[in-house]
């Protein structure tokens, strides 16, 4: 299993957190905005194309990599890029736990963080806790 990178966006589309592990290409200018647009658009495609009118976007797979998606009730969205064989249901559970455990403990409950436009995660504790969490879930 290989993780390449992770983006977390707030409800305004701000990229509040980015981290990379085994990424082989250099980050490009403005790519966080493109990833934000990509996941947002796919999520809306999913709603509009579904027969029930309900949405649901979990992952998209390419020959070289896979992008996993999850979101919170309050509009935080995560895009996790991994090797193409990482199972969707495994990662869905992990991302849900990431939001309810790690994100809640190190971001929501951090008095230096607030749910406002333009506010990014500055604490290093979240990044470290995220690494530990992914290690404990055996995907890193």
């Amino acid at each position: 299993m290989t993780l390449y990178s992770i983006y977390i966006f707030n409800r305004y589309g701000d990229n509040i957190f980015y981290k990379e592990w085994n990424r082989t290409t250099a980050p490009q200018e403005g790519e966080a905005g493109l990833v934000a647009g990509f996941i947002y658009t796919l999520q809306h495609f999913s709603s509009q194309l579904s027969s029930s009118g309900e949405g649901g976007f979990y992952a998209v797979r390419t020959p070289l990599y896979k992008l996993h998606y999850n979101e919170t009730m309050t509009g935080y969205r995560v895009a996790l890029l991994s090797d193409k064989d990482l199972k969707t249901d495994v990662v869905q559970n992990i991302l849900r736990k990431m939001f309810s455990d790690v994100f809640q403990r190190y971001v929501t409950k951090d008095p230096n963080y607030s749910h406002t436009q333009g506010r990014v995660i500055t604490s290093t504790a979240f990044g470290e806790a995220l690494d530990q969490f992914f290690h404990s879930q055996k995907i890193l």
Partner: protein
Amino acid sequence: MSQQRQVAAKLGEVAFDSGEKASAEFFAITYGALVQQMITDLPQADDVEVVNQQLDTMGRRIGSRLVEEYSARSGAPACRTFAQAADAVAIVGIKMFLNVNATVQPAEESGGDTFTLTFADNPLALFVELPEGPVRQRLWYSNVICGVIVGALSMVGFIAEATFVRDTLRGDATNEILLSFKGREKETFKVEQ
């Protein structure tokens, strides 16, 4: 109680049980010290409405964070309608954070966009007596709860107003909050072109 509400009540109970507990007395006394300080700091002793506003503002900031914990711990689904949101606030949220059983019903002649939340016990009001005069007449002692509700709902897309209409500290038989739907938050996620 409908089956849906029974499920919601169970979610509230389980969420309360699973959370870290703090002493109710400590919580009540801390809150009491805060309110007392606000009243003492009033430039004009009569301006009790200022304290109501400060408690509401503080509550909104608290609510915008509490809703993350609500979502994480209760496992309750996202609400599609304001009626569902009112149920979730009263039956899950208030139970989860205050361990209080609240009831919710549509306010009379509201056309479905206003709800009355009623609860008999108020853990914030433990040991509290309000002095006669403007404080007793105009202070909504637990107004932070209204702010929390409004702040939490705004994070999940509902613009709402919450106001106390009855308070046992003022001599009413029960505590009542009027919760009104004011609109939906606009989609704020910006996508580059």
